[in-house]
């Protein structure tokens, strides 16, 4: 306890260590929040949901906050649903069915045009389909007829840009631009103000209902933007955090603890045990680490648990075991070990109670400094396409972005967001680890 307190007191004198600790603490809190707010199954479902879940988001757009740095504001993404706001619907009976008037109001105060506009109709009917006619009203009162048709299926989508008639009515211009444009402007400039979509719906049956959702696919979305499958990147960024932290921590902890214990046993018992450990270490040196991980990912299983286990197994007999062994060999000859032997302590007791604690001051900095390596290893494998098949991780975002030419197309946010998070994580742990090294390692203290 005292040592921990003293260590913290010493750490407080290194600004980089304090910064590193704060970042790690924040990331841990965010990770816990992520796991609670989006449970595992939900995260996986969202990430693998496809267009069914992500129909309301635009394709490959940067996050909303890029507007803070832009003079020309990019249009945001939003949706208006008659199910959410019943006041938009007014119904009067007519014949067997109803006449429904739907008005959807929204403000448009942006300096460029949205990616796409869509109306999603949800209807219930038995035989006779409801009839819909929609009109677009600009702030200056101009009206444009959007569509008049009978809904053919209970779920029907009207995409503005894909409707040939509408495009013809707008003289061949893209609807999502022409509808928002100042009349006769060239190049098209958006007219700011209040827009309205008026829908007249006629139903022909008693229980027939119609609901409509208008979606404006802007050029920005959410906290993190979206990818090529319209997925909100913030989910992967959030979920990538606990994945990265736990992968790094478990791998570093597992590797160094196992290496320490094995080295202690080897040094204490000596003889063939020590010899065997040394031979395994040399064989391990010959094994190609990354290709073997790639093979395991390609042939067996890409799940993060498999990769983690393989990583730990391949790293245990690494260079650190030799360093630990050398120290244990020195410690073994110390008088206090001899004293322990004299009072009749058994082998296990000496190893666990007297040998291992001696090395912990060396172990902790090595452990903390080792974490970023494993975090980046997971990302590296993901970049090669060997990331966990279901979990969203930072590395997988980078791979998606690389694969879809994010850099060629100027979609920097897509690659820079996960990269920045990786970098911050790596920096935090290595800043802390370097300071711990200087505190615990007396050879470095003065240097």
């Amino acid at each position, binding site marked *: 306890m005292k040592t921990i307190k003293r260590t913290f007191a010493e750490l407080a004198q290194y600004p*980089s260590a304090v910064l590193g600790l704060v970042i790690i603490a924040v990331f841990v809190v965010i990770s816990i929040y992520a796991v609670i707010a989006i449970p595992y199954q939900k995260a996986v479902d969202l990430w693998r949901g496809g267009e069914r879940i992500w129909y309301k988001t635009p394709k490959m757009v940067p996050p909303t906050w890029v507007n803070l740095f832009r003079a020309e504001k990019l249009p945001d993404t939003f949706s208006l649903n008659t199910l959410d706001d019943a006041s938009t619907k007014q119904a009067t009976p007519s014949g067997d069915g109803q006449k429904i008037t739907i008005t959807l109001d929204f403000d448009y105060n942006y300096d460029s045009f949205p990616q796409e506009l869509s109306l999603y109709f949800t209807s219930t009917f038995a035989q006779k389909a409801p009839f819909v006619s929609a009109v677009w009203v600009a702030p200056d009162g101009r009206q444009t007829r959007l569509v008049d048709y009978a809904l053919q299926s209970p779920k029907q989508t009207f995409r503005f840009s894909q409707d040939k008639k509408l495009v013809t009515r707008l003289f061949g211009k893209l609807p999502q631009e022409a509808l928002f444009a100042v009349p006769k402007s060239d190049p098209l400039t958006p007219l700011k103000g209040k827009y309205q979509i008026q829908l007249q719906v006629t139903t022909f049956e008693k229980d027939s209902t119609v609901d409509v959702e208008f979606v404006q696919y802007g050029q920005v979305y959410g906290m993190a933007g979206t990818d090529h499958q319209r997925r909100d990147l913030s989910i992967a960024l959030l979920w990538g955090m606990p994945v990265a932290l736990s992968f790094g921590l478990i791998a570093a902890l597992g590797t160094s603890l196992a290496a320490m214990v094995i080295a202690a046993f080897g040094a204490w018992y000596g003889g063939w045990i020590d010899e065997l450990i040394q031979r395994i270490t040399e064989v391990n040196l010959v094994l190609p680490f*990354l290709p073997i991980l790639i093979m395991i990912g390609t042939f067996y299983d890409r799940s993060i648990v498999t990769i983690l286990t393989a990583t730990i197994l391949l790293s245990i007999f690494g260079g650190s075991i030799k360093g630990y062994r050398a120290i244990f*060999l020195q410690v073994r000859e110390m008088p206090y070990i001899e004293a322990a032997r004299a009072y009749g302590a058994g082998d296990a007791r000496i190893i666990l109670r007297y040998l291992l604690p001696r090395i912990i001051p060396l172990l902790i900095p090595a452990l903390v400094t080792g974490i970023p390596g494993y975090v980046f290893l997971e990302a590296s494998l993901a970049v090669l396409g060997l990331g966990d098949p279901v979990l969203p991780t930072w590395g997988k975002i980078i791979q998606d972005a690389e694969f879809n030419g994010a*850099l060629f197309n100027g979609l920097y946010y897509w690659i820079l967001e996960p*990269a920045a998070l*990786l970098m911050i994580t790596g920096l935090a742990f290595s800043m802390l680890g370097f300071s711990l090294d200087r505190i615990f390692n007396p050879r*470095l203290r003065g240097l």
Partner: protein
Amino acid sequence: MTETLQPSPVRKPSRFGALTRIAKYTAVRLVTLLFTVVVGVYLTIMIANMGGYVDEIRRGEIGEKIQMLALTDKTIKNLPPEARAKRLADLIRLEEKRYGLDRPFVVRSFSYLADGLTLNLGRSQNMTSDSGSRQVRLILLERLPSTLILFGTSNLFLFFLSLFWGLSLSRQYGSFWDKLVIALSPLSAAPGWFYGIFLIVLFAAYWKILPFGGMVSSPPPAEPLTYFLSMLVHMILPVLAITLSSIFISTFADRTFFLIYSSEDYVEMAKAKGLEAKDIERKYILRPTLPNIITNFALLLIGLWTGAPIFETIFNWPGLGRVTFQAVGLYDTPVIVASTVLFAYLLAITVFLLDFIYALVDPRVKIGGGEGKAS
């Protein structure tokens, strides 16, 4: 390896004793290293074949291929049913023989091992070199120059830069630059490919002054000089990425290393004697650090032979790392084994030679001197 570094006992052995000691040590060392290489390579073979499971995948692939052939090839299609079945069975047997599937995997695994160890690299199963050859030797040789050029240039640059910078920082310990390098050393937590992404964003995507990747512009320039210049331009970003990712940590390590050596008692003694600073540095500080520097350098040299799959993917560099990656994807055991064997041999030879080089440069080290160690 480290145990041989222990200082020799003071007693002076006879010349004859030294010779037998060296011979014995050399023999033991060679045997253990060979054992290491054999076990390492055999393990790789087992992993690369999933302990024989790849055979099943292969059989499935062959069956599918022959079925496709039966559907498309008119000469087979027009045969009477019995003759067709026989012809297909023959084709399958032939194809299985080509992959060596007619022999049990255990037998084959040892022939892979024997071929690998005798550097009889043979032919690949699926991969071809860019010039269309199936020779594993050619597949690897074709990519070797590009890997050596890129990683050789950057790692040598890095090695000497950090060495000299570290040395100069150790002289001006506590100065602004010293503190800066210490402060920046955590930056090395990120690997080279990671800095590569940032550099590509800046220089290729945003400022558009350097290429995104590749080794030469496309189509490759015909003239040697323009070819060379084009390659030089394509190398700027990768070299910069490798340098950025390691320069601070290696400078920091070298500087600390030199500082530890310059605080030894014999250096203080030399200073007290009033020797010239230049002499102190050369004879008392640099000389004892030589074995470590040589080790690092040797490990760097053999490290070049593996390439770096991720780095090469990011920069679209046609190197050895990507060959290995492709070979894994195609279950091409001969190529995987060949690259492992080459690396294992190089490592073993280097480790073996280093013991002797230590003895040459460091009079405190005696070959085989550590054999009578306590453990």
